[in-house]
């Protein structure tokens, strides 16, 4: 049973068959994946070219003894400690407008979990051309203002979690609580889309 204990058989089957793409394995992506694995999803495609660094540990789902590991390897290890046997197509590469459609072509929904604003825009535009639903995040730095983080519906296939204004800056750092709200909102939207629940 494990993570499926609270699901009815129909929901369980939908989530076990689904495949979710995650673009970036930082503060958003690592926490989105943790939520989605606990929600009962087992199949993922994801990409990140980075290694775990000490400064990641203020918000990302990695551990101190993983510093220096590739994020793809470290996160696969951590997620399989929640649910062994996950199907993880994790690629150690930089995503581009060219390789995004190929990596995520068989995904039911894709999560934008990048750090840089330019990359976020690129991913949303690339996915919009495919018709595969995308859930993005924008505006999650700093502390407080929890209610400012909302889910914006662009159309029935594009959603954006965040306040759309709180970008990272020297005065506004990304931190676990607020990044976590946005990550949980992204994950919650993915599950609702898959289960055809109210967004």
């Amino acid at each position, binding site marked *: 049973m494990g993570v499926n204990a609270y699901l009815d058989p129909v929901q369980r089957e939908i989530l076990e068959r689904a495949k979710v793409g995650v673009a970036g394995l930082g503060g958003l992506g690592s926490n989105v994946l943790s939520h989605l694995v606990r929600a009962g999803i087992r199949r993922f495609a994801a990409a990140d070219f980075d290694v775990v660094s000490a400064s990641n540990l203020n918000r990302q789902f990695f551990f101190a003894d993983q510093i220096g590991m590739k994020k793809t390897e470290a996160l696969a290890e951590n997620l399989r400690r929640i649910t062994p046997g996950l199907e993880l197509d994790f690629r150690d590469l930089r995503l581009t407008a060219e390789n995004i459609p190929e990596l995520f072509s068989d995904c039911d929904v894709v999560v934008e979990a990048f750090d840089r604003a330019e990359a976020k*825009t*690129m991913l949303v535009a690339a996915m919009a051309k495919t018709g595969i639903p995308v859930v*993005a995040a924008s505006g*999650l730095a700093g502390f407080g203002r929890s209610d400012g983080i909302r889910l*914006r519906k*662009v*159309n029935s296939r594009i959603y*954006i979690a965040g306040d759309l204004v709180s970008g*990272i800056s020297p005065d506004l750092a990304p931190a676990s609580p607020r990044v976590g709200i946005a990550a949980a909102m992204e994950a919650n939207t993915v599950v609702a889309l898959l289960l055809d629940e109210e967004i």
Partner: protein
Amino acid sequence: MPKVILNGEETKFAEGETLGAFLRSRKPREKNLIVDWNGRILTEHDPLDEFTLSDGDRIDLFSMVGGG
């Protein structure tokens, strides 16, 4: 004067104005915008100066800022 619905609010534009010119004049400091123009998803990498606005067009802007 013709109007577009910009993020839900009626906004005047000049006859023949392009989407690119409209965004530069109303949102001069905005970068990394997701632009929904009558349901079409565009960014600054699309040829926005080739798209001429029409009365009643709907434009919704979503600003992508860094952090994750």
